[in-house]
């Protein structure tokens, strides 16, 4: 990432070299692998019950059920809802234990 000076300028150039201030980024864990297809899969929702999630997530559940034969979409309230609980280890354990293949999380604004 560098910016060279104007090539039309003739004569000694001033060079200013400085640190990128954004710091290093570490990737310590990967996202879950995607499922190859949604057909016949078991899908869950984890909702914070905010930002119209109570309307949008049921619509998405309906769309998934209509578009993918054999899909099983768990009820929106199958897991604890609310910002205070959806990030907890307990909720994560419940999601794992449910045997879902994939999860949709919402809503943020």
């Amino acid at each position, binding site marked *: 990432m560098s910016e060279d000076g104007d090539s039309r300028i003739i004569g000694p150039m001033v060079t200013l070299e400085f640190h990128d201030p954004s710091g290093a980024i570490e990737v310590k864990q990967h*996202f879950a692998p995607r499922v190859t297809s*949604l057909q016949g899969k078991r899908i869950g929702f984890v909702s914070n019950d905010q930002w119209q999630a109570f309307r949008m997530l049921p619509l998405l559940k309906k769309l998934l059920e209509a578009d993918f034969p054999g899909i099983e979409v768990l009820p929106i309230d199958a897991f604890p809802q609310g910002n205070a609980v959806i990030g907890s280890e307990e909720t994560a354990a419940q999601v794992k234990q449910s045997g879902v293949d994939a999860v949709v999380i919402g809503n943020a604004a």
Partner: protein
Amino acid sequence: MTNAVAGLGLAPDAAMVTFPIEMFLPGSDISPVEARKREFYDGLTRWRSAFAADGAAEAPMIRVQSASVEEAFSRANDLMLTNRWGDGLPLWPPTRERVDWILRGAAQPRGRRVGIFPPRGGVTTIETCAIALAMAGGRPEYLPVLIAAVDAFLDPESGSAQLQAASGSAFPVVIVNGPIGAQIRLNAGFGCLGPDPQRPAGASIGRALRLLQQNVGGALPGIGTMANYGGVRYTNVVFAEDEANLPMGWATHATERHAHAPGQNSISLAFANGATNIRRRGAKRETPEEDALQGMYRMADFMRVPNMPGLAGYEHGTPGILMIPGVVANTMAGLGWTKASIREFLWEHSRIPAEHLRRAGSPAWIEIDSSKVVRESIALDPWPITASPDNFIVVVAGGGHPTNGYWLQGYSPGVVGRVLELPSTFDALLAEAERDLGPVTPGPGGRPPR
């Protein structure tokens, strides 16, 4: 939402479907969910992170070339803005020489890791802090305060992981105690929350913290932070308590809140999202007792509002920081007031009648809170704005004038203290500062700093 998951050790991207904010409002048209359903399906099946590599990706050096120093400086500033590293005000390019100079203020090795800055998850080291301080126009003797503030900021107790991204426009408030405040030219008196060429340290330190929040933490407006207004974020708030004018028998904030020994150099970090002047002095022929009491009522009345940021720190944090000038503190102390009795008064007289909470819809916020103490507080009428009087922060600071107090409305799950680590060469740094900037001017009220 970009970067929202990087602080968890995941790559700074995620499978997301984003919509304009209008769709998230009550009564909205949610048909775009159906129109863009394929994006949801792809997120579950085909999406791949663009950051596949493990380990840490080091930030590179940047190089600009120009025909003159002025042009190179200008190009460097343009480049920092186009890379979204700036704040719109001129920046000092963090050259190796400048950063090495700033690092003379470090008591720790430059590579020592301070933490991971949320939400982006940038690795923060002593050097990263020095780079930000260089950009912000800082000096080496400011670095111990900045490092301690960053360390406190990154403490999970501070709540920064949420507040960095939240819409409530939180900004960090750093209160400095100990002799270092006056030594490095931090303001404790007139204009202590604003610009002051005689005491410029607070602006540089606070600006550097903000640059770290943005550049390392990814808190870019509308991208990494959804702060609606973002007030006071150019420099955040960094000031010293006016210890020279503390009444006899009144403890410093550091001693009261964090049990730091008197005279110890330390910082205390909380978050606020409002800043308001309160006219506390009487206008006619009040007695000293009336003047003090009326001022206290006026300040408590100002806090008695069903505004919900206080919920964040209801149990362990703070509803806010009340600043009172030394001249007022000494008058009140002469009448028998203490910091503790001020807090008790504020707690008792800022209670909100339940009916006022109900008409404002506030109980819903109380009911969904993660804290049991908050949820159970709904039974209280009038409702105290914080769980305990001890949660109020009272500091002596501000110009030597009796008319006004100042209220920094808290939005602060915790209040985090840190003792400063100074390099062995700190006295030499202060001598260099005196050579560069002239002698330190007297503190508020004309007293020399001690």
